């Protein structure tokens, strides 16, 4: 199985360590992984802002870059959701359909496609899981608190198998953090308030490290944590799963 590694634009530029951890993790799991070097972005920031029309070029480029792979894997639930959900603006050629059907968020790929949950990682800390909305409610990476379905969580399955890691229980376990792409800028007051409340929930629960499968939410939370000097760290789930395996 040939896997194309998709690194979202902001992770590429600002969080290379997340991209590296993702790549190393996949390599350790013996995945035959390739990084198409002409990739840019999935077009999500444009689509969510109402400029879907202007994102067609970026979407088409995404398909060109990834059409030859059996699976496309990226460390970002919201970008993968965008590919699966909103690439209907392109003509549905066999390539487009293939890319949409075979795009996976990293945790989803490890659990559902590789069938693994115990990766042999160890991380002796108190961890709070931020369940990003697009991954949770969009990609169904877990059960949602609004729905009356049996409990499941792809990320929890992985984290519960990390040695020494203590997963802390939050009060509002899947409330949005308030990032929302350009929402964070155009609805600044609410965005900041939501983020602050989310951080407080983690602090109240004794969390040391906030993790999640979507680094955009973590970037927003990190910005607030650093500004207010809160005793918290954020790490992408790939970085935790990649520790000492």
């Amino acid at each position, binding site marked *: 199985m040939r896997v194309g590694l998709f690194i979202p634009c902001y992770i590429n*530029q600002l969080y290379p360590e997340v991209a590296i951890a993702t790549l190393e993790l996949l390599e350790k799991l013996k995945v035959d992984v390739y990084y198409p070097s002409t990739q840019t972005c999935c077009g999500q920031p444009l689509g*969510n*802002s109402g400029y879907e029309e202007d994102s067609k070029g970026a979407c088409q480029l995404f398909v060109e870059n990834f059409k030859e792979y059996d699976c496309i894997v990226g460390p970002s639930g919201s970008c993968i959701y965008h590919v699966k959900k909103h690439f209907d603006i392109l003509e549905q050629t066999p390539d487009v359909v293939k890319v949409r059907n075979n795009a996976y968020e990293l945790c989803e790929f490890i659990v559902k496609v590789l069938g693994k949950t115990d990766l042999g990682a160890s991380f002796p800390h108190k961890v709070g899981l931020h369940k990003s909305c697009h991954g949770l*409610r969009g990609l169904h990476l877990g059960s949602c608190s609004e729905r009356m379905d049996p409990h499941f969580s792809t990320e929890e399955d992985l984290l519960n198998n990390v040695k020494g890691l203590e997963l802390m229980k939050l009060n509002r376990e899947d409330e*949005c953090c308030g990032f929302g792409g350009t929402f964070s800028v155009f*609805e600044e*007051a*609410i965005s900041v308030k939501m983020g602050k409340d989310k951080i407080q929930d983690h602090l109240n629960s004794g969390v040391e490290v906030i993790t999640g499968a979507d680094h955009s939410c973590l970037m927003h939370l990190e*910005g607030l944590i650093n*500004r207010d000097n809160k005793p918290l760290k954020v790490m992408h789930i790939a970085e935790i799963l990649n520790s000492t395996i």
Partner: protein
Amino acid sequence: MSHSEKAAIFNKNEAKVNWHDKALWYVREKRDNAAHGVKGWEYLRDTASKIKGNVLSNLDNYLIEFEANALKNGIKVHWASDAKEHNSIVYKIVKEHNAKKVVKSKSMLTEECHLNPYLESKNIEVVDTDLGEYIVQIAKETPSHIVLPAIHKTKEEVDELFQEHLGTKPSNGNPEYLTNEARKHLRNKFLQADVAITGVNFAIAETGGFVVCTNEGNADMGAHLVPVHIACMGIEKIIPKEEHLGVFLRLLARSATGQPITTYSSHFNKPAEGKELHIVIVDNGRTEQLSREDFRSSLHCIRCGACMNTCPIYRRSGGHSYDATIPGPIGSILSPGKDLTKHSSLPFASTLCGSCSNVCPVKINIHEQLYKWRQIIVKEEPQPFVKKSILKIAGKVLENRTLYNFAGKSARFMLKYAPKFMIYSKLNAWGNARDLPEVKNTNFDDWYKAKRKNKK
């Protein structure tokens, strides 16, 4: 003012925001508990959604069936194409009976049609008899929530309001005392009224009757005491058969307040001896919304308010920030259909987290419709120059790898070396309260080139 500007003002008082957020989250938790108690909750939602889908596809037939059966029962049926017509029909009936005093039970449709100011301009006294509605009425405000109209007011604020309007004693916001005083006051209003107006929760095509749900019994108090009862309903309130009521009544109360059933689910089938029962069936933009395929299912809404309680933005914005009769997530997909220019900021007042769609008892894909409205608004409404240019340029950059490389490098360079006052300026809403990410020495592309030879 846009939603974000209004919400920013609401957020100046953080303690109030916290209180508002907690009050509504409490209702959301009550709803979760109540829903957990029902085996097959998701199945019920599916069923309700399918019934509503069927109703919308056959709306004309069901309405005609309803009218025929209602007439058979002795109900007088009126049709209104818009708010203006609705108001004048109601006024005509009121005038025919020389009525001066009207008691109203809570109805979002009459809010939507601005019935109160219209009747008041004709020298008719209208009293809202739902306690929350009454509070906002004397405060000269509009409801900030469709089920909890006065949720934006604290007990202490209500205390002051009652002192001023009802002459109550200061009670430090004692809810029991205040409710009792309001009850006494409203009792007189019921006794003096000539006409009662109610909303309609469900109208049943098969029987020509309708159901009104209240927790305070105020619809019944009004309707049973007066000689004339006028019920106002939107065309989408129809359900085909009486047997479908069970599905909706179980969903409605639990989604709205977490109760297993609303305290009063009153069935009105025909006028009592010697009395009149009117029903006004209103379109007011609904057929237009029905014709928009992407947004048609917004008419499934049974007005439970659950999407507001769950919405993290609504909870921190306050209902008035939406400046619309129906605020919150559902309002944000209904309102642009009525006035795109006025409500163009509402579909952006969301992170598209999807909690609303998950909570909705009739499974409206609210967050997907918000996304769709955004695409339309950007095309049809003038956009701020800066926002528009940035996003258009971004589109060009992201479809071209050379431009992307260049942009990535320059942005990283700027973030790293530009003076702080340039990055944290008024123009940069990210940086007011948040630190920007720290820039590393390399990006992933460069790292990859150096460390891995691509196998491709």
